[in-house]
């Protein structure tokens, strides 16, 4: 039962991201490195947030204080990673880009944005679920003190949501910054706002018998919104889609 549950929750949380990895990232070493580096940046942002949480001793149990700052730090580090990528691309561009373009190789910004969002999401989800998974395989009874019995399943689904959300946030963030103009503010602003919304909604999960449906529905609704926004940002609109379908 326990191994089954652990396997089930692992697959729920990591099934889609693993497929994403296998099909889009695994065969492209550059994207692997970008994902790793962005995971490292997320770790650094978590380090800062933890320092903050750790330092303010009396508010340690009041997560409502630490969570917004954690979100802000994450987005700051996402921005820093964007700057890093920009510098790298600039350095590359100094080198005879003509030959590369002739050979059909361009610095694929979309792939980089995607890989970086994916890296962020993967490590974020991993830190959220991996200890829970390892506890799942051990003995224990869920909900023995009146807690919710959906703890594991909800965690798994929320982790999936977080991983995918981060991927799309990454794409939106980078693409908007690249586009310039008004998008430079709308894109990152949307990302920060929705991130904050999502994290603060999950704070509701801290009550004794939480209604996971709230955070789950909000999370997936935000995900849907982000998907649509990404698609629109990348230039698809209804006409395109109609043409493709027909």
């Amino acid at each position, binding site marked *: 039962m326990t191994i089954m549950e652990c396997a089930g929750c692992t697959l729920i949380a990591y099934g889609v991201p693993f497929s994403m990895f296998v099909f889009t990232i695994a065969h492209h*070493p550059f994207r692997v490195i970008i994902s790793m580096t962005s995971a490292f940046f997320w770790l650094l942002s978590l380090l800062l947030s933890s320092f903050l949480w750790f330092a303010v001793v009396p508010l340690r149990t009041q997560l409502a204080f630490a969570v917004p700052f954690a979100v802000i730090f994450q987005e700051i580090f996402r921005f820093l990673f964007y700057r890093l990528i920009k510098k790298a691309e600039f350095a590359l561009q100094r080198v005879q880009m003509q030959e590369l373009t002739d050979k059909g190789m361009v610095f694929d910004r979309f792939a980089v944005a995607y890989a970086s969002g994916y890296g962020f999401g993967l490590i974020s989800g991993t830190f959220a679920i991996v200890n829970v998974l390892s506890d799942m395989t051990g003995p224990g009874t869920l909900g023995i003190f009146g807690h919710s019995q959906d703890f594991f399943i909800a965690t798994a689904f929320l982790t999936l949501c977080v991983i995918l959300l981060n991927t799309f946030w990454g794409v939106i963030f980078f693409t908007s910054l690249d586009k310039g103009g008004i998008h430079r503010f709308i894109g990152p602003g949307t990302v920060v706002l929705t991130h904050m919304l999502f994290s603060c909604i999950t704070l509701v999960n801290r009550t004794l018998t939480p209604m996971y449906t709230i955070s789950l529905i909000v999370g997936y609704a935000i995900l849907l919104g982000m998907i649509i926004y990404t698609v629109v940002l990348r230039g698809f609109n209804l006409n395109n889609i109609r043409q493709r379908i027909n």
Partner: protein
Amino acid sequence: MHRLIDDNQDSPDEMTELLKSQDNDTIIDGPERPNITNLPDVAIIQTSTDGENISSNAAATASSHSRVEAIDPQDHETTHRHRRNEQPDEQRPLNIEHEEIFKYGASHVVKLFVPVSLCMLIVIITIKTTSSYTPGGATWAYTPFTEDKSTNTQRILFSLANTFIFMGFVITATVILILLYKFKCYKIIHGWLILTTLMLLFFFLYSYFSSISASLNRPIDMITICFITWNIGAVGMFCIHWKGPLPVQQAYLIFMSALLALVFYKFLPDWTGWLILGVISIWDLIAVLCPKGPLRILVETAHERGEQIFPALIYSSTMVYMVTAVDPPPSEPQFAPDNINTNIAVNVDETLNEEQRNQRAAIRNNNARRQLIPRSDVPQTATRREPARYVVERSNSPVIDDDDDDEKGVKLGLGDFIFYSILLAKASALGDWNVTIACYVSLLIGLCLTLLLLAIIRKALPALPISITFGLVLYFSTVYIIGPFSAELNLGQVFI
């Protein structure tokens, strides 16, 4: 130790490499040395205003245009260089100012990620499933003091003493190695290498199997164990010291590194282990970069003799080739084959279509610029006694090179594998997977950075310091600071 093998070699006698690095994989062994004896001609040097050259795949692009001679202030082997093409003179000053572009792409970095990850995976799986590889059971001669002391101060002092004793062994081994190399006692080194591989493959393997069967509570009869050990050991000896399929050789190296890391993990007391990790990174740094450092002396000696530095204890991702230069064909297209081999920086992932691949293969085949001679690598895991080095005898029979796009391999010293795995093993000992994953990511990023630096600086570089520093910093911060925060978040299922 990393080496990126460049197949645009000009120098007639030696293998030239674009990037050198060096690493101390001594745990017991002497440090490993890079095989670089001279800088290749083909490094393209281009400046960039930012001075930042992050992507390691930037390499390839540069090679697309004419080659430039790498200007190296330490270069003393102009005699060995042959310029393949005559550079137009006006290009040289331009290229001198420019920053170096990496020739090899991200695929080489990933090629090192995979074996390092595999080694760590083996170590962690063994630790989690068997109980006999836990530390504190017995003590060994290298760290004679135990850590069961009453006060923390005493514990630190005894750990420091342990560390220095251990480092004493390591330094002695390194110095002996260098003396042996200087006095050309190659036979001794060779013999020692074989002896240590023998011991490692048979004895440690046997003890590994017995501890596995003991902790899984399944008795295995002696005949089966002997049969398995004999077969695995014999094939290992062949693959490592003679010829064998590359994946098998790589698998053996990874497995032996994992075994050795497990042995270390078992015998090193807790605090001593951390101190040793720190001190050996510093030693690595000193030995490789200081002018009087033993490894540096070794590199220079090999330089002078025009020999390759020992290839022992190296994991290589391709067959190691020795390159001899052949006169280039008179008309070389600008779209030179080197460029073909490069992983282009930008979007490395673009796969070439069949036609392009065939074209490139054809060009490469027609271009008899160099003949590649496979040389059997003699890597081996670190021994506890002396570093074993093996000088490669150059064979004179040319062999056809293979046509992969990534025939240029990357090398990493096995000591790196071992120390990374030790760090990760200690990180996973707590049972907190956050710590393990944080250390894993930081180790890999450190490796990535080291390779990047390697491409920029193009000198011998130790692989341990950056990774171990990141790993240690992230370990302690995750255990004490991130851990409680993360636990609090997990408890309430708050997702940040």
